[in-house]
C-alpha cells in the first residue's frame, strides 16, 4: 500500500496527501503511533481522515499508511460478555496491559486469539453449503449457543470439516466453490461495520418484545424486530429505561451501546449485570450481553463508529436465528459526533449545524432493524430490535435529531421531566407517547395473555385521556365541583397512574412484571371502576368509595411476588366485591328506611 504524508491536522480530522490507492471508508494508520483512522473524503490527491484516537502530537510530514480494508469488526465466539470501545477494542484487555487510562495507539485483538472453543459440526464432508448456512455450533456461554455460519459470498462443496477445540483463527472447514477456488472457514469472520449484513427477506412484526415494564408492555408495546426511541431532557430517566430494557427484555442477545455517555453508567452496567439473573434461566444476564462503551470523553470519531460496531454485532447474532435487541444510549451524541466531524470538514451545515445527511444516516441505522428470514440453511427467522435514546437540547423535541428519528421509528416513549420531578418513574408521558405496533400485536396479546387485554388497554388509555380533560376543569373550579362519576374517573385514573404505570426499577419485585400479572393488575383496577360505577348508580356517596381500605391493597399489588400473585389476586378480588356489596347493602337499607 502507498504511504502518504500528513499535510493538515485539526482536532480529530487529518488531511493526507499521496494515499494514491485509498478508497472511501478505508482504514488507515496515522503517524508513528499508527493511530486508527478512516478515509471520509477524497479530493484529488488529498484524503481527509477521521482519526479514532486523540491526535495530539501529529503534524505535517508524519506518515499515513493505507490498509486497503474498510472499518470492520471481528465476529465469532468470545463476543458475549465483552466490553468494547467504539471500534471494537476490548477494554478489559486494554486495562490489563496498559492500566486504568486509555493510552493512544493501544492495540488489542477484539476476539481472544488464545482461547480454544469446542466446535461441533452439524454438516458433513461432501455437503453442499451456501452463504449463511450453519455448519456447526460452539457453546459460548451457558445461555448462548454460538452458531458458526458460512460467511456471505461463499458457497460450494464442503471438502473438509473438523471437530474439536479450535482458536478463532484456526481453519475448521474447507469449501470448494464452483470456480474451483478453496475457501478456509474459521470460527471468526470479519464484516465492514457500515454495510448491513444480508438476509433473505424482511417480515412484518407479530410478536411483542416483552420488557416487564408495565407502561411499555401494556400501553406502548414494541415488537420483536421493531424500532423505538426514547427522547427526554436530562434527569428524566432515559438511561434507567435503557438499562431496564437491557436487563429484562425477552431477547436472546442484548447489545448495549453506551455512546458518548457517562463513564460511571457503563461501570454500573458492568458491575450489575453479572449479578443479575435472567428471569427465564436464572443465569447471570451478562452471559447474553455485549457492551460497547465509548464514553463522552473518549475520542469523538470512535463515538461516531460505535453505533455501527454495535449494530453489526447485533446483525451477526440475528443471522444465527436469535432475537436480538440493541440499545443505543444516546443517538444524539452520535449525531453530535457527526456534526463535529462535518464542521471540521467545513461542509455546508444543515439545521442547527448538523450535516445535511443526518436524516439519511439515522434512517440507515434504524433500517438495519427488523424481523427477517435469515440467509442459509436450516431455514430460520430472527429479529433485531433497535431502541435509541435521544437527548434533545433543552428537552425541545423540535430539534433535528428527534425529528429525523421520529420519521423512522414506530414507537415513541416520550419522557417528561415534570413526571420525573414528581418521582413518577418511568417518566413516560402517556398522552404524548405512541406505539404503531399496538394493532399488529393485538392478536398476540389476545391469544397468549388473555382476550380482555386489548379492551383493558383501550379503557386505560381512555381514562387517562379523560383525566387530562377533567384536570383542566379541576384547575378552574376545584375538585368538589365535579360530578360523582367524574370524580370516580379521576380516582381510577390516579390509580392507573400511581398503582399501575409507576414502577420502581430499584425494587426487587416491582422491577419486572410478567404479562400475566400485568393483566391481573389491570383487572383489579377495572373491577374497582366497574363496581364504583354501579355503586354510584345506587346512590352510594363517592367519598365512601374513595375511602375504601381495599384500595390500598390494589395499590400495593405490584409488590406481590409473581409466584404468590394468583392467591393474593383472588383474595383482593373477594375483598373488593365484598366491600362494594356492603356499601350498596347499607345504601339499600338506608333507602328503605327513608321510604
Amino acid at each position, binding site marked *: 500500500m502507498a504511504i502518504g504524508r500528513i*499535510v*493538515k*491536522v*485539526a*482536532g480529530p480530522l487529518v488531511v493526507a496527501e499521496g494515499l494514491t490507492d485509498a478508497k472511501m471508508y478505508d482504514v488507515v494508520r496515522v503517524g508513528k503511533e499508527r493511530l486508527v483512522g478512516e478515509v471520509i473524503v477524497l479530493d484529488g490527491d488529498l484524503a481527509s481522515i477521521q482519526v479514532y484516537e*486523540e491526535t*495530539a*502530537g*501529529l*503534524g*505535517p510530514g508524519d506518515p499515513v499508511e493505507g490498509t486497503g480494508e474498510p472499518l470492520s469488526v471481528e465476529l465469532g465466539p468470545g463476543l458475549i460478555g465483552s466490553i468494547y470501545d467504539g471500534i471494537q477494542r476490548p*477494554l*478489559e484487555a486494554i*486495562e490489563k496491559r496498559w492500566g*486504568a*487510562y*486509555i*493510552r493512544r495507539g493501544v492495540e488489542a485483538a477484539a476476539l481472544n486469539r488464545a482461547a480454544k472453543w469446542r466446535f461441533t459440526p452439524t454438516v458433513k464432508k461432501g455437503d453442499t453449503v451456501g452463504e449463511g448456512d450453519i455448519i456447526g455450533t460452539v457453546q459460548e456461554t451457558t445461555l448462548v449457543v454460538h452458531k458458526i455460519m458460512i460467511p456471505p459470498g461463499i458457497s460450494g462443496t464442503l471438502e473438509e470439516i473438523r471437530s474439536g477445540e479450535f482458536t478463532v483463527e484456526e481453519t475448521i472447514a474447507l469449501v470448494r466453490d464452483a470456480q474451483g477456488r478453496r475457501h478456509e472457514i474459521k470460527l471468526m469472520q470479519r464484516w465492514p461495520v457500515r454495510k448491513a449484513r444480508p438476509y433473505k427477506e424482511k417480515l412484518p412484526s407479530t410478536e411483542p418484545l416483552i420488557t416487564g415494564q408495565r407502561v411499555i408492555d401494556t400501553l406502548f408495546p414494541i415488537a420483536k424486530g421493531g424500532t423505538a426511541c426514547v427522547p427526554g*431532557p*436530562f*434527569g428524566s430517566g432515559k438511561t434507567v429505561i435503557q438499562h431496564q430494557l437491557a436487563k429484562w427484555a425477552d431477547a436472546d442477545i442484548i447489545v448495549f451501546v*453506551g455512546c*458518548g455517555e*457517562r*463513564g*460511571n453508567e*457503563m*461501570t*454500573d452496567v*458492568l458491575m450489575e449485570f453479572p449479578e443479575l439473573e435472567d428471569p427465564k434461566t436464572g443465569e447471570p444476564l451478562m452471559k447474553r450481553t455485549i457492551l460497547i*462503551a465509548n*464514553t*463522552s*470523553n473518549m475520542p469523538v470519531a470512535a463515538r461516531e463508529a460505535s453505533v455501527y460496531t454495535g449494530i453489526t454485532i447485533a446483525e451477526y447474532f440475528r443471522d444465527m436465528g436469535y432475537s436480538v435487541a440493541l440499545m443505543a444510549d444516546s443517538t444524539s*451524541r452520535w449525531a*453530535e*459526533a457527526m*456534526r*463535529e466531524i462535518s*464542521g471540521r470538514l467545513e461542509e455546508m*451545515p444543515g439545521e442547527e*449545524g448538523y450535516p445535511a445527511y443526518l436524516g439519511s444516516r439515522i434512517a440507515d441505522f434504524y433500517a438495519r432493524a427488523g424481523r427477517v428470514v435469515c440467509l442459509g440453511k436450516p431455514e430460520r427467522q430472527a429479529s433485531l430490535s433497535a431502541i435509541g435514546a435521544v*437527548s434533545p*437540547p*433543552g*428537552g425541545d423535541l423540535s430539534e433535528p435529531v428527534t425529528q429525523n428519528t421520529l420519521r423512522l421509528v414506530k414507537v415513541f416513549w416520550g419522557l417528561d*421531566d415534570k413526571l*420525573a*420531578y*414528581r*418521582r413518577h418513574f418511568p417518566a413516560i408521558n402517556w398522552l404524548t407517547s405512541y406505539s404503531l405496533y399496538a394493532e399488529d400485536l393485538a392478536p398476540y396479546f389476545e391469544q397468549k395473555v388473555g382476550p380482555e387485554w386489548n379492551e383493558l388497554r383501550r379503557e386505560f388509555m381512555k381514562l387517562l385521556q379523560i383525566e387530562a380533560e377533567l384536570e383542566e376543569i379541576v384547575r*378552574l*373550579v*376545584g*375538585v*368538589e365541583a365535579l360530578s360523582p362519576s367524574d370524580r370516580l374517573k379521576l380516582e381510577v385514573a390516579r390509580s392507573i397512574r400511581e398503582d399501575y404505570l409507576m414502577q420502581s426499577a*430499584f425494587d426487587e419485585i416491582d422491577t419486572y412484571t410478567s404479562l400475566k400479572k400485568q393483566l391481573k393488575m389491570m383487572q383489579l383496577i377495572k373491577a374497582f371502576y366497574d363496581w364504583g360505577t354501579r355503586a354510584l348508580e345506587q346512590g352510594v356517596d363517592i367519598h365512601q368509595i374513595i375511602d375504601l381500605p381495599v384500595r*390500598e391493597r390494589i*395499590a*400495593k399489588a405490584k409488590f406481590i411476588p409473581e409466584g404468590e400473585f394468583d392467591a393474593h389476586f383472588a383474595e383482593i378480588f373477594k375483598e373488593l366485591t365484598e366491600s362494594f356489596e356492603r356499601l350498596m347493602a347499607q345504601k339499600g337499607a338506608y333507602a328503605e328506611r327513608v321510604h
Partner: protein
Amino acid sequence: MLKEYTSVAEIAGPIMVVEGVSGAKYDELVEIELAGGEIRRGRVLEVDRDRAVVQLFESAQGLDLRQSRVRFLGKVMELGVSEDLLGRVFDGAGRPIDGGPPIIPEKKLPISGEPLNPYSRDYPNEFIQTGISVIDGLNTLVRGQKLPIFSGAGLPHNQIAAQIARQAKVLGEAEEFSVVFGAMGITFEEANFFITDLRKTGALERAVMFINLADDPVIERITTPRLVLTCAEYLAFERDMHVLVILTDMTNYAEALREVSAARKEVPGRRGYPGYMYTDLSTIYERAGRIKGKKGSITQMPILTMPQDDKTHPIPDLTGYITEGQLFLSRELHRKGIYPPFDVLPCLSRLKDKGIGPGKTREDHAGVLNQLYAAYARGVDVREMAAILGEAALSKIDRIYMKFADEFERRFIQQGEYEDRTIIQTLTIGWELLSMLPRGELKRVRDEFIEKYLPKKAEEPVAA
C-alpha cells in the same frame, strides 16, 4: 535547539497564525517571546502544511507581528505536581500568587489527561455526609460523583459550596476531604470569600486553589479547570487522597470557549457555542470518579450560573447531560429568606440509590426520600391551585399537603450556614414532617418502617 520563528502572520483575539513553520505538531505547547523578553504561552490548534494556528493561553496584549518570537516546544502543556501543591494559591495559568516559592515538581503531567477506561472505574457508592438536609436526605452525594449546582446571579451558591467543603465527610472515616478549587472569572470578593473561609477552618492546608479573576485574561479560563483536575488526579490516584473539586463558574469557562471558537470562525451550534462543547465539557466533568484498586477519589462539584435562570440554556443543558444529577437553586425561596434555597423538585442525584440504605445511611432512607418528594410535589401543586381558586376550594387533604409544603421548606430545607446535621437528624426531621400526613397517605414507605420510625403523636390528625 528549538527553532524560533518571527513569522507571525496574524493575531486576532486569542488566535495567532504563524507561517513558514516546519515540524509543528497538533496540540503542542508554544512559547511566544515578546520584544521585552516576556513569555506568553499557547497551543497549536491546527497545522496546515507550514501554517500553524495557535490558541493563546494568555492575553494577546502587547503581541506584535514583527518582533514576537515563537518557539514550538514539542510537548503538550503540563503541570508540575508534588505534595507541596497543598496549601498553595495559583493564578489561572498555574503561577503562584500567594507570595510563596515556585513548586519543585516531583513529576510533570499533561493537563488534558487521558480518558479513563470504563472497565477500570469503580462504581461510586460511599455516602458523603454534607450536613445539608436537602443533599444528604434527598439528593445524596457519593464519593466519586460529579454533582453540579445550577444557580443564578445573586444566589448564595458560593456559601453552599463553602459549607459543603467545610462539612463533607464519609461516616466512620477520620480522614477529611482535600479541596482543589478552580475559579474562572469570578470576582475578587468571591475568591476572597473562599480563601478566608478555608483559612478560618484550617482547611487551607489541605487545599489547592487556582484562581482566575474576572479581570484576568479570559483565555486562561480554558486552562484553569484542566490544571485543577490534573492536580486533583495526582492527589487522588497517586497520593491516595479523597479530593473534592469545586469549579466556579463554569458559565465563564463556556464563554471563553465560545470566544475561541468565534475567533476561529467555526460553524456555531446553539446560541453561538461551538458544536463540540458537549465533548469539551465532558473532558472536564468525566475526570471525576474512582479507580479500581486505588484508594483515592475525585468528587466534583461544578457551579454554574444559568443565564436568566434558564435551564435549557446550552451550558446547564449540556452539563446536566454529563453530570450525575444536578442541584438547582431557587430565586423564589431565596427571596423568602430560606437558606440554602434549593429548588427541591428538579434536583436529582443519580447515584443516590447506591449511597443510601442499611449500612450506609439507614434502612428507611429510600422510602422517606420518595415520600417526602411526593408529598412536597403535591403540596406545591396545591399551593398553586390555591393561588387561583382560593384556599376555601381545597379539600381537607389538600390543605394538609399545603401546610406540609410550607413546613417542609421551613424545617427541612432551611438550616444555618454553619449547621452540620447528621443524616439521622435529617431523617428525623423528615419523619416529623411526614407525621403531619394521614397514615394512609404514606404509600411509599414500607409499613415496618412506619411502625418503627413514625413519631407516635401522629395518631391524631393535624388540624389543617
